[in-house]
């Protein structure tokens, strides 16, 4: 049901899902399939994958928040990216799949007192997710940049493997032929088929619970001009905006306890390595990762088109600039760490976007240093002729002696540190001194508001978190369905009526 009153557009739904990424799309699909009336709102646009070049500036413009220029302030500041489009981060990430790490899950259960967390259940959900998003290895050849990681790790006898992706490949196809099985191709169509509706380019500014239901105050449009506001009234709201937007929305709505105080990320440092042959693949990322030092430290490859190579060289442009002419022989690699540091997400009155900060610990800085050193060693072993580390004052590394100079000059505060895996701003569990939401994602102290995205993961899991986010989202959505259905049957037998039921 919807109607227009003046400039205000009012919409009603039974369940409102805010955000359409790994958490929101799965939540919406499961609830819609269980018969709930579901409306998804997504701040970004719907972008068809075939209309955009992966990892290009154009993609960043269309599918990332703020064109990919978002920063957690600190010393150093850490650049991060968020998907802002239908499908969220699943449309733009590397697509590298890791099952939920069970040792980590077990630690979460214990340390955050997560009730009813059944590892077998999570495992079986993971199986289901792998089917749904078609997790598979490359049938044909990996890219040269990926092969470099494999070769370097093999030479050093370091543990490495090809990470499967949520991709569909033509028979025998090479890495670059994959079609990403993101949310716009999997769970969102499932949600639509089951009757869910979706509003794109609709931002939720605030949630107000009036005791019977929740009203979401929204702004329509892409944010570039004066746009009409509106309201969506729902019996239940699932906030799935990712680890930055979710806590910011809750804070703007007056929910603040243990919300936005424990941002966790995987900080990464990077380098660009030059080889004798043309190794650059502009529109794909390597599928190999090196896990010898995991979970503390992992190595992988980054998107490396010419613009990103130039970007990686800017920290020391005066000495590195001549290398840009050889960008076809270059590829960018990263060292990612699990961090002891913590960040804050703080909604500020009068500002549309929250303030984000992050502080690295002493140990984090040391692990970043050794990570960059070990990564540089790996690329040398794989045959790199020159290595250009991304930090101010970095030397060009050509041999092992140069590695000493590089590690000596390194300081995390001089490095281009970035991250993608943002988590943990609304940790789940019954530990009320640490957790913003309960064991199934319902915000502590709220009656009708759930969180169901990466914000719930109590810490950064040490691997790409998409599968873990999806598994928890599905688990929590099923619990919600069970509860509602049991209340429903209770109500029908008790003949009480609740006005919130649309």
């Amino acid at each position: 049901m919807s109607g227009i009153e003046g400039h205000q557009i009012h919409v009603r739904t039974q369940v409102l899902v805010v955000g359409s990424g790994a958490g929101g799309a799965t939540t919406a699909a499961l609830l819609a399939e269980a018969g709930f009336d579901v409306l998804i709102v997504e701040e970004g646009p719907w972008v068809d994958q075939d209309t955009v070049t992966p990892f290009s500036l154009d993609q960043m413009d269309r599918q990332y928040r703020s064109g990919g220029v978002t920063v957690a302030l600190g010393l150093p500041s850490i650049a991060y990216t968020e998907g802002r489009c239908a499908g969220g981060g699943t449309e733009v990430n590397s697509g590298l799949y890791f099952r939920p790490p069970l040792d980590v899950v077990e630690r979460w259960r214990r340390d955050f007192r997560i009730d009813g967390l059944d590892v077998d259940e999570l495992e079986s959900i993971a199986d289901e997710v792998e089917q749904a998003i078609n997790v598979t290895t490359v049938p044909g050849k990996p890219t040269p940049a990926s092969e470099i990681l494999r070769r370097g790790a093999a030479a050093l006898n370091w543990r490495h493997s090809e990470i499967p992706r949520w991709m569909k490949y033509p028979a025998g196809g090479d890495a670059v032929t994959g079609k990403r099985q993101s949310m716009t191709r999997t769970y969102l169509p499932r949600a639509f088929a089951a009757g869910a509706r979706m509003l794109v380019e609709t931002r939720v500014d605030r949630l107000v619970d009036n005791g019977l239901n929740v009203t979401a105050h929204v702004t329509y449009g892409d944010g570039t001009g004066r746009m009409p506001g509106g309201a969506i009234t729902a019996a239940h709201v699932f906030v799935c905006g990712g680890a930055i937007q979710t806590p910011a929305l809750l804070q703007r709505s007056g929910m603040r306890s243990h919300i936005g105080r424990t941002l966790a990320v995987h900080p990464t440092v990077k380098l660009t390595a030059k080889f004798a042959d043309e190794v650059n693949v502009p529109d794909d990322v390597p599928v190999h990762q090196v896990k010898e030092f995991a979970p503390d430290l992992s190595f992988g490859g980054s998107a490396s088109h010419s613009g990103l190579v130039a970007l990686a060289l800017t920290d020391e442009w005066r000495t590195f600039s001549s290398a840009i002419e050889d960008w076809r022989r270059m590829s960018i690699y990263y060292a990612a760490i699990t961090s002891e540091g913590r960040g804050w997400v703080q909604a500020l009155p009068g500002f549309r976007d929250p303030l984000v900060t992050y502080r690295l610990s002493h140990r984090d800085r040391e692990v970043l240093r050794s990570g960059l050193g070990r990564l540089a060693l790996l690329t040398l072993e794989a045959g790199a002729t020159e290595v250009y580390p991304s930090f101010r004052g970095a030397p060009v590394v050509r041999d092992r002696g140069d590695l000493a100079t590089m590690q000596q000059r390194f300081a995390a505060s001089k490095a281009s540190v970035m991250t993608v895996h943002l988590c943990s701003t609304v940790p789940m569990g019954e530990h009320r001194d640490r957790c913003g939401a309960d064991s199934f994602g319902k915000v502590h102290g709220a009656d009708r508001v759930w969180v169901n995205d990466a914000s719930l993961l109590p810490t950064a899991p040490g691997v790409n978190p998409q599968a873990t986010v999806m598994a928890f989202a599905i688990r929590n959505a099923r619990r919600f369905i069970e509860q509602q259905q049991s209340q429903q049957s209770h109500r029908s037998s008790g003949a009480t009526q609740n006005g919130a039921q649309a």
Partner: protein
Amino acid sequence: MRSVPSAPLVGPFADRLLALDFPALEPARREQAIAFAVRRVDGLPSVMNLGVILIAALFRGLLALPGNEAILRFFARTPLPLLGEYVRLVRSLGYAYIFETWPDTRPDGSSPTPAPVEAAPADAVPNMGGTA
């Protein structure tokens, strides 16, 4: 809070910085790169946007002073906390745009195959995106 358009503040600084870094870059290309940088600054998250606008205003003021060439060179070469981050931001945006759009650009900004007429790439116009 609605953000202040950054073009009058960021544009002239980006122009001077990129002209200094890439003396042989065709002015038309430089303008495109500046337009890109300005657009990204406009799209920054609001807190960052405010910070950048404040620093940009300071730099805009400095560029109006006598001896501004030396000031520019100083900031282009000296990584200062906070203020230096602004230089780094503008530089990063400009470099990424220039080398993604014209991958064969040389380190001085010159191009082996200067196109007589540049068609503005799709990227240079704000994209409204499709809708479901």
